[in-house]
């Protein structure tokens, strides 16, 4: 009998599994769930200390399909950012991992998405982006490209919201885009996002096989494969492994992450610098005009303090504080009363 393989904290991949999926066979979201499992397993995320968050929609169901040993909060439509903010501030020891969709994030939840990034809540925020409402059977979402069509032919007359562009504008310190079918790229990106302190946004194009995989869709498997423009070849080196700095100079960049891990980026486009925000914005606009889908690490800036840092919280979760930690003394209370007296 061969020994079961375990990760750095001694857990098997089995320890990260979730319940059986109820999504359509072939749905991009199922692939992403597996990539999340793989990333958390490889990074040695402690399931007991993981908080899973989601809103409403097909994507938001998926936290039931990975890491059942972690608490999950499948909240209300578009409200996941506020729920996660409350939970992660109440207990900053938790690792926050959120899954949302393009409707949940870009339409009903765009306000909360914006303010989550503005506050830089320390969490991974994965958008499973298929450009369409699945559970209500195939309406456009706010990320659907102008000119793209619904299954029955209706054409979208509106400009899309580019979630990576929006995150960049808001000063998000970790912005990435990927494709549900690109395990090689997405797994290290999720690992890197987990290692980042602050809000990490990963916009993952995840085709809807039932409502948005036809010709005329710009979120179909065929379209994405054709227009995918990876920026880098990505590898993740966790904090517990040594890094070999053995690459051709100028060709590969090692991005150091907050927990000591590294993301190695082998450049495919020599001009792309994921730390130059203005250049990244310009390239993003240019790529969109060419209908190119830039994937990989779009932008990285580790310098911004996260919300729990700004909040100056103690290490222990707030619920562990006792009455004697929370109430002023009798003398202090008496002084408050005195102030209100004659």
């Amino acid at each position, binding site marked *: 009998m061969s020994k079961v393989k375990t990760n750095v904290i001694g857990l098997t991949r089995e320890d990260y599994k979730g319940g059986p999926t109820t999504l359509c066979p072939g749905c991009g979201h199922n692939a992403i769930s597996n990539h999340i499992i793989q990333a958390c397993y490889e990074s040695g995320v402690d*399931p*007991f*200390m993981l*908080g899973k968050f989601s809103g409403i929609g097909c994507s938001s169901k998926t*936290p*039931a399909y990975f890491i*059942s*040993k*972690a*608490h*999950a*909060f*499948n*909240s*209300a439509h578009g*409200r996941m*950012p*506020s*729920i*996660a*903010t*409350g*939970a*992660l*501030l*109440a*207990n900053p*020891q*938790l690792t926050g991992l959120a899954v949302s969709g393009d409707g949940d994030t870009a339409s009903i939840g765009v*306000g*909360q998405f*914006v*303010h989550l990034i503005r*506050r830089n809540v320390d969490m991974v925020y994965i958008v499973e982006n298929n450009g369409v409402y699945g559970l209500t059977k195939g309406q456009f979402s706010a990320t659907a490209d102008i000119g793209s069509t619904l299954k029955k032919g209706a054409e979208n007359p509106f400009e899309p919201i580019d979630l990576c562009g929006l995150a960049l504008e808001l000063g998000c310190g970790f912005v990435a885009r990927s494709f549900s079918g690109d395990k090689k790229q997405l797994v290290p990106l999720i690992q890197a996002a987990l290692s980042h302190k602050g809000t990490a946004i990963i916009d993952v194009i995840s085709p809807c096989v039932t409502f948005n995989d036809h010709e005329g869709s710009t979120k179909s498997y065929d379209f994405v494969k054709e227009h995918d423009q990876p920026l880098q070849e990505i590898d993740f080196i966790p904090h517990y492994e040594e890094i070999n700095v053995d690459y051709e100079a100028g060709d590969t960049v090692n991005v150091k992450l907050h927990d000591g891990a590294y993301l190695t980026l082998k450049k495919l486009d020599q001009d792309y610098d994921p730390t130059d925000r203005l250049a990244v914005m310009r390239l993003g606009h240019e790529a969109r005009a060419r209908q190119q889908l830039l994937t990989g690490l779009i932008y990285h800036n580790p310098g911004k303090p996260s919300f729990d840092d700004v*909040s*100056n*919280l*103690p290490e222990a*979760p*707030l*619920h562990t*504080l*006792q*009455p004697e*930690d*929370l*109430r*002023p003394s*009798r003398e*202090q*209370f*008496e002084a*408050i*009363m005195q102030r*209100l*007296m*004659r």
Partner: protein
Amino acid sequence: MTQQINDVNIQIATVNGTGSQSANLILMRSLFNMGVPVAAKNLFPSNIAGLPTWYTVRAHHKGYQANKQDIDILVVMNADTVYEDIRNLRPGGVLIHDTGMKLDHALREDHINYGVPFSKLVNEATDNVKLKKKVINMLYVGVLAHLLNIEPEAIEQAVNKQFKSKPPVAELNSKAIQVGRDWAAANLSKADPFVVESIPGSTEGKILVEGNDAAALGALMGGCTFLSWYPITPSSSLCENLIDYFQRYRVDAEGKNRFTAIQAEDEIAAIGMVLGAGWAGARSMTATSGPGISLMAELAGYSYYAEIPGVLFDIQRMGPSTGLPTRTSQGDISFAYDLSHGDTQHILLLPGSVNECYEMAQQAFDLAERFQTLVFVMSDLDLGMNTWMSDPFTYPEGGYDRGKVLDAEALATVQNFGRYADVDGDGIPYRTLPGTRHEQAAYFTRGSGHNAQAKYSEKKDDWKAGLDRIAKKFETAAREVPAPVLTSGQGTDYGIIAYGSTDAAMVEVLDLLQASQQAPDYLRLRALPFCAEVRDFIASHPHVYVVEQNRDAQMTRLLSAEYPGLAPRLRPVLHYDGSFVDAIGIVDQIVQAEVKQKEFANV
């Protein structure tokens, strides 16, 4: 002329943003310092500066604190409202006006008129043009001090308290008050009956406080560690006070904050953060008003069904819609009680005094965690933003009720943990917190259908069992929320039910009714859901007046729905014009109704 001692209702008509607040506080505190019980009401516009404001200080030896519609002494400092103010002043009332306003043609013979050259007199207090606008308000304090015979020491004490960190400011204001007082002594001959006399010991040890400050202090003592809020009148001062308390008393030895306070992007996010924090085990709260709870409706239902604790202070203002943002109301009662779609219900606490704002703020956190649900504290603008006299608050004894939480150690003794299982038969399930290191700890929180094991379910039996179990939980809650307070009367056969800020008027109502040979029993509700005592009270009276500050008799409707057999006994007595509720208005309605009742009985 008979003197009227220690019973005077003084109103200052002014313009908001002119700094009259300091003068008004000094006036109120001076009376308080003499041992005369006081309460103050600020009727202010929804505006930053330039619109009319009326500040009323009521001094009464019996400690009546409710609004009184009739003004005894009116100081008019606002030229824009002066004609209306004069029109509204009751016959026999005292009018103090600025002779610079040239009002002679408008003055009424049935008033006692004192003209004071405020604009000229202010030059004697200061040469500084900038300060004149503020200091002029101190002059009326001086004039009133002379007319009412307020002790100079009481004023000095009040001035020093108001400007304790700024001695030169205190000195300047003292001087202005003296200028007013000296001028009045030399130029006015007293023609009104109102005087104050010191009552030794009467206000000694009492406090003056606003309900929102009291609630903030209660939240601090009650172990609130998480506040998320969106500014809205009249609730903002609760949050701001709490943040002040947090910064003063919740920074640990290492300089770390034992609290989180987040100004959210809107009320939806505010309640979302409260639920997230409550789910993670923090004692979390928000404070808002009617428009805010409208926005919070969806997540309120989530809290109900997914069973997540949280505390929500609703400082009620006048709706519907934007309504009257700076006017008080009890208009959110029925909306809050079942806030959200579907079959939903919430625990409502109904503080009737500043002391109860303090006490119920603490109880709310215990109840929220005990019952794993949102608890509403239904205060209002009158309670929350006006100044009330109270006995000092009590330092809490004992710990917090953190409810049924299973930690890793407890889970080790549990077989087959079910997040939504009714283990104890009281409808209250056990919960675990994220971050609990045990194989059984994790569960999936969802607002969609789930079974006792927190698994997704659309099965009819699971759904119904879940809703029925939560209903049972609220039956348990009805026995544990604050019980109503009964004041027994004698000799009449009817009862009165009231709640919240109306209680201040009810004290006076009962005295007035007694003076007209009626002594009804009075039941003050302190919480929803209703308990058996409420039913028994209605059942033991042929008819019961339900006094409330809304148009639709919301509590009457809730009582009628709860006890349909007793509904014909309930008679609403309503106050909903935006003014602070007063005793006379209530007594008039009851007395008229009683006359009709007797006429009807005699037919």
